[in-house]
């Protein structure tokens, strides 16, 4: 048998280098090489450490060597992170330099200097490594067509991170654009393992679509922290186990502790420092920290100069930190994929298992952690739902297209609906988006003389930018990631990072808070800079960050329900958990995996209803609001509710007698619109929509407007628009976004469809053991923003005034 026939890669230019390194080709690399060579678009699924990056470059490098001194851009590599893009360059450099191959490659991101970018435009490298935003920008240049006309491959790295968000929409539109410029272009996607591989294929591939998959047979070793302490009923801070966590850090060479929020990261870091008697080197890493601080931590991590890093999802993706020995996940895993991604950050070696320890911060999380471990052993991943494309991203793309030159709207429409997320985009909606870019797209035509793009008189299908100056505005506005209004924190002259404006507004001079692992005292705020000094205070606030609250995945939720019902397992749990569940069984009931337990009991003069949906935080939050309205209708005089990932609790003045009549699909259909209107959810999403669609300008550093004002003015626009033109495309778009992202509409719908037949109603005389965690969470007001404002004003007035000179009726 001719060995070269069985493995064509033995003739590949990189084979020499592989041999030198004593590495051999992976089966998925051979398979990918074959499929791509025979003209297929391919998505490759492989775990970290299985040469994924190289897999993408096998065909391009082979081609480039065969073509000899190919001039111009040949391969485009899209990475989700700037830091990853830089890492790819470093990895590519090794074989190309060592083999002295005649292939040029460069990186282009937001950090590339204008000079270098200009150079790249004039003399493009063979391989360009970039991000979706930089690709969008390249497509908005007048010479885009020439730049891309010889492009042979586009490689999308970490494609699983691109399937369910607006960045994916933006990327999909820009892939179609370069495909138009270069019809022979082939697409290669690289992904971590995914449950719904077919979906990723549909999203990316057009030509003879193929899936190549390499599964890791070595399963990670995950266990739950064995604690002598009591697992708390409620809360998310894991203070109870801090000493045991510290011991675990000491046992390993290098540990990453993952937490779920930035606030938790700061808190965990602070608590570790308080007990750091061995003077371990512990660092903190999260998305709000100044870039340089983050880079420093990442650097120390890869050089092994620290003992432990406390991190949020900011360290989930990215560079390989080969020496990380152990992962500690503090708090609920929330999803299988996410947990796997985190666990995979340790031991980047295919043949040794990753090691991880889960630290539940409350009792429900213990069950969740157990369930997650089971699912991982079964390799049962979460499905990533492909999302339908958002309108605002199309608007931005239309603007970009106009910046590149005049365009025919029919051609553009045909190109856009080739992109998977926009297959169902209606021509009429598309035309409204054209109008949106033209002049805001309002029914009232006030802006005829101020248009941004206009139709040619001789051909009404052709649109053109009115003024080239507008290209600058597009370039300032590009992208789909909208940050919350943030303020810079300065300690002396040093910038520590960014903090949410809302948090700072609630501080007074002299208040202390924790940021970047330090206790800081708030001094003043000037010109959007928050001036702080070091504080010795013990009592301090932790900034809360509104974003990033991940709901429990449906997959894991199902698994939690199944596990809860398995009473034969209970004896293997820590005694306190067993005790908790047994008492629940005696006093009330443990729901079977397809049952929905509802408990009702009186408590402190009020009447409580607890519904265990396991629907995740978003859906439960929505359901809580809807039920509040349902209860009002039945005159139960509801007072409030609290939701978490597992359950909702509502309390009312009167006994809720008709819960089975209220809790069904009708609830959703009847009250959803009202709910969306009354909470600020759609309003908040309208701001993102207005910015992404370039209706209003993005706030950039150095602009005098504070973030709050941008938010404020988009609120004004929202209010005026809602009143005068409720059918406007951007309102529609915001509403769709809300349904998709913020309220878990589909998930809620699925549950409500079947819930009425599956309700197990338990009338109790007092609170049940299972209800304790959520009852403990009742401490915040659950009022809409509007109501809160009025409440604050009224309360304040009553408190300090109490003189009745005030009201009279005209």
């Amino acid at each position: 048998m001719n060995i070269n026939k069985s493995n064509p890669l033995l003739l590949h230019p990189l084979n020499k280098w592989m041999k030198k390194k004593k590495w051999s080709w992976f089966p998925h690399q051979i398979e990918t090489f074959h499929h791509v060579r025979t003209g297929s678009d391919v998505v490759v699924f492989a775990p970290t450490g299985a040469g994924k990056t190289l897999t993408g470059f096998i065909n391009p490098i082979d081609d480039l060597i065969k073509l000899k001194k190919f001039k111009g851009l040949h391969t485009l590599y899209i990475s989700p992170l700037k830091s990853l893009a830089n890492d790819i360059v470093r990895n590519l450099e090794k074989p190309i330099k060592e083999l002295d191959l005649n292939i040029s490659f460069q990186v282009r991101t937001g950090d590339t200097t204008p000079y270098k970018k200009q150079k790249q435009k004039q003399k493009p490298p063979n391989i360009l490594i970039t991000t979706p935003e930089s690709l969008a920008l390249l497509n908005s240049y007048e010479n885009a067509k020439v730049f891309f006309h010889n492009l042979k491959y586009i490689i999308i790295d970490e494609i699983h991170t691109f399937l369910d968000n607006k960045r994916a929409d933006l990327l999909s539109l820009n892939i179609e654009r370069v495909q138009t410029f270069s019809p022979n272009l082939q697409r290669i996607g690289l992904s971590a393992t995914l449950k719904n591989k077919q979906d990723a294929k549909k999203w990316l591939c057009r030509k003879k679509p193929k899936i190549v998959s390499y599964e890791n047979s070595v399963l990670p070793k995950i266990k739950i922290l064995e604690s002598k302490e009591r697992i708390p009923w409620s809360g998310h801070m894991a203070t109870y186990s801090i000493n045991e966590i510290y011991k675990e850090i000491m046992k390993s060479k290098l540990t990453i502790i993952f937490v779920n929020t930035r606030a938790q990261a700061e808190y965990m870091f602070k608590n570790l420092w308080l007990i750091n008697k061995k003077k371990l080197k512990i660092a903190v890493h999260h998305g709000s920290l100044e870039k340089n601080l983050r880079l420093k931590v990442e650097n120390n991590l890869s050089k092994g100069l620290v003992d432990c890093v406390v991190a949020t999802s900011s360290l989930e993706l990215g560079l390989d930190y080969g020496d990380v020995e152990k992962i500690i996940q503090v708090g609920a895993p929330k999803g299988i994929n996410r947990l796997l991604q985190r666990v995979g950050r340790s031991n980047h070696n295919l043949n040794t298992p990753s090691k991880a320890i889960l630290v539940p911060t409350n009792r429900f999380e213990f069950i969740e952690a157990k369930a997650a471990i089971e699912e991982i052993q079964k390799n049962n991943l979460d499905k990533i739902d492909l999302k339908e494309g958002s309108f605002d991203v199309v608007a931005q793309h239309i603007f970009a297209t106009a910046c590149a030159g005049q365009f025919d709207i029919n051609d553009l429409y045909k190109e856009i609906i080739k992109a998977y997320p926009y297959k169902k985009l209606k021509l009429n909606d598309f035309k409204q988006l054209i109008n949106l870019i033209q002049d805001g797209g309002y029914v009232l035509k006030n802006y005829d003389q101020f248009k941004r793009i206009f139709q040619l008189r001789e051909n009404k299908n052709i649109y053109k930018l009115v003024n080239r100056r507008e290209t600058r505005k597009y370039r300032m506005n590009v992208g789909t990631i909208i940050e919350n209004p943030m303020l810079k924190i300065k300690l002396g002259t040093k910038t520590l990072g960014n903090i949410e404006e809302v948090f700072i507004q609630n501080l007074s001079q002299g208040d202390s808070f924790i940021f970047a692992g330090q206790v800081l005292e708030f001094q003043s705020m000037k010109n959007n800079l928050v001036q702080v000094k070091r504080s010795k205070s013990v009592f301090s606030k932790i900034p809360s960050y509104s974003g990033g609250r991940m709901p429990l995945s449906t997959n894991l939720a199902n698994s939690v329900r199944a596990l809860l019902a398995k009473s034969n397992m209970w004896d293997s749990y820590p005694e306190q958990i067993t005790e908790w569940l047994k008492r629940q069984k005696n006093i009330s009931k443990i729901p079977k995996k397809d049952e929905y337990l509802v408990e009702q009991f009186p408590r402190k003069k009020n009447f409580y209803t607890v519904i265990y949906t396991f629907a995740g935080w978003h859906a439960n939050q929505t359901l809580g609001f809807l039920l509040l309205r349902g209860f009002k209708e039945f005159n139960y005089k509801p007072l409030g509710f609290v939701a978490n990932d597992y359950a909702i609790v509502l309390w009312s003045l009167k006994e809720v007698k008709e819960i089975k009549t209220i809790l069904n699909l009708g609830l959703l259909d009847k009250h959803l619109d009202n709910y969306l209107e009354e909470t600020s959810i759609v309003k908040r999403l309208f701001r993102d929509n207005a910015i992404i669609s370039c209706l209003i300008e993005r706030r950039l550093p150095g602009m005098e407007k504070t973030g709050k004002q941008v938010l404020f003015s988009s609120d004004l626009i929202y209010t005026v628009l809602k009143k005068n033109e409720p059918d406007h495309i951007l309102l529609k778009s915001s509403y769709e976004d809300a349904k998709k992202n913020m309220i878990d509409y589909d998930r809620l719908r699925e549950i409500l469809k079947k819930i009425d037949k599956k309700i197990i109603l338990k009338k109790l005389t007092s609170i049940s053991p299972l209800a304790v965690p959520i009852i403990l969470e009742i401490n915040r007001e659950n009022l809409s923003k509007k109501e809160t404002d009025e409440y604050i004003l009224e309360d304040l007035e009553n408190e300090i005034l109490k003189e009745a000179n005030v009201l009279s009726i005209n």
Partner: protein
Amino acid sequence: MYYQLINFGNEEFHAYPNKSLYWKRLNTLIVSDLHIGKSISYAKNKQFLPPYDTKEILNKIFVSLDKIKPSNLIIVGDLLHDVFSTLSIKDQDYKNLSQYMKNTDFTWIKGNHDKNIQIEGFKNFTNYKIEKFLFTHIPIETSLFQICGHYHPKVKISHRGKTILKTCFVHNEKIFILPSFGILTGGLDIHSTQISDVLGKNNLSIYPVGQDKVYKL
């Protein structure tokens, strides 16, 4: 409509949640900083805000005039956002305006935004004196009581761990500042240097505007 009674310069004024001020004794309605046509001005720079602000502001005025039937309407400046603003005023709007002018005297104090613009039927002034009160866009050196606009005042209220920013009427002993009557207008914290340079920091009477009610702090 609910109003808040405000005593300023020994006179009684009524502050309405629609951000207008009524001087009952002289049957005079006072508004400020309407910024009519702000949307047009932004459209000029290709920022396409909803073009309904002019219509809404005028409607708000007309509703007030219908209800209160004042003999005088005083606008303390920035009726218009800029020279392009008149483009957003339609023929029908002009007709309505002249109808209302039959029963109400329109006095237009010029502001920094509209000092060089004319509209038929409006009497223009840089400032306007009634008894011991001077109506002016930006306060000047004078011993009179002044009623002004310009600053679009807002007040930051922290209470029970929450902070909100609300549009407000505000005055000290001598100077009264109206909130902006406009639709797409933002605001300025009354403790910002621009406003405290004028009003000082202490002894302010502050009246935040709520949904249907003007409050008193």
